[in-house]
């Protein structure tokens, strides 16, 4: 078993390590998130993905759920995740980023680096159910390690391209201009000046 082809394809469009992607794949698989538009109960959201789907929800016993997407976020938790990532839309890559950032933040507060644990693998994977099952009862249950192992070969590490840094570009432009190299100092007085190495 593995995550759905839709989820795997989107994960392989993301940048990052295979271990991080496999974590999310195992999470989605356990949550039954076969698509990025699936709603709890199996129906599909066909409206806009510019924000979390404002669907009516479904009854679960005496309560109600509004879980949606590949990682079955609830509106409140998705808003928390979006506050971390800065991505409030509900497109696939937004859900992927939010799922990782949310999981990593909670795991860090309870144990440590989620990425380090995923990179270590092996017996360390048992920490996922220990610390995240309360957040994702299906996706982070005791079967997580086996799902992770099944998904790991299906995702690949993708390196993000270098991000243009406007500040660095400005410094480079300044570097091309003639610079003043003479500084006059007086005893007991200080001077501040930028120096290029």
């Amino acid at each position, binding site marked *: 078993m593995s995550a759905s082809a839709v989820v795997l394809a989107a994960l392989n469009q993301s940048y990052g390590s295979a271990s991080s992607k496999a974590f999310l794949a195992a999470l989605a698989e356990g949550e039954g998130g076969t698509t990025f538009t699936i709603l709890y109960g199996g129906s599909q959201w066909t409206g806009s993905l510019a924000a979390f789907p404002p669907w009516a929800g479904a009854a679960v016993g005496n309560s109600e*759920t509004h879980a949606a997407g590949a990682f079955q976020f609830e509106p409140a938790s998705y808003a928390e995740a979006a506050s971390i990532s800065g991505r409030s839309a509900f497109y696939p890559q937004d859900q992927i980023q939010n799922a990782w950032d949310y999981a990593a*933040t909670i795991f860090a507060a309870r144990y440590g680096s989620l990425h380090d644990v995923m990179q270590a693998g092996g017996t360390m994977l048992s920490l996922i159910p220990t610390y995240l099952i309360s957040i994702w009862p299906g996706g982070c249950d005791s079967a997580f390690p086996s799902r992770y192992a099944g998904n790991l070969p299906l995702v690949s590490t993708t390196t993000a391209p270098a991000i243009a840094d406007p500040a660095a570009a400005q410094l480079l432009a300044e*570097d091309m201009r003639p610079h003043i190299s003479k500084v006059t100092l007086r005893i007991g007085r200080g001077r501040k000046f930028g120096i290029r190495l």
Partner: protein
Amino acid sequence: MRLRYLRATIAAALIGLSGCTVAGQAALNGLPSQITGAEATADQTINQLILQKAVDTHNLGVALGQVNAAQGMVSMTPNVTVTTTATPAPVATVAPPDTMPTPITMPPPVSAPVVVPPPVATPAPVGTNPPATLP
């Protein structure tokens, strides 16, 4: 070439006397081994001389160390405190929330696989769905 800016604060300076021979012990990396009196004027300091040469040769890091190790002064002992603070290019970071996030109240997942036709794709507007960046 990797670009880096340092902001150096010279806490104290020393005025070199015109006509006197001052020797600054320079270290490696191509700095001059001596700075003679001919190069020192009333308006210049040993620090400046070293810094001037260092800036010209782009070797300030070594020069700063040598300011404290200047030797052979005729009249005064160098008393220079140099501090540097590296100011690398700012790196955007995302701070985790200060408080524990509210856990998702999750109902049990869909127990049986639900076979549904693929939904009508709602493509993201151009430029609004950049790839996620994971570690």
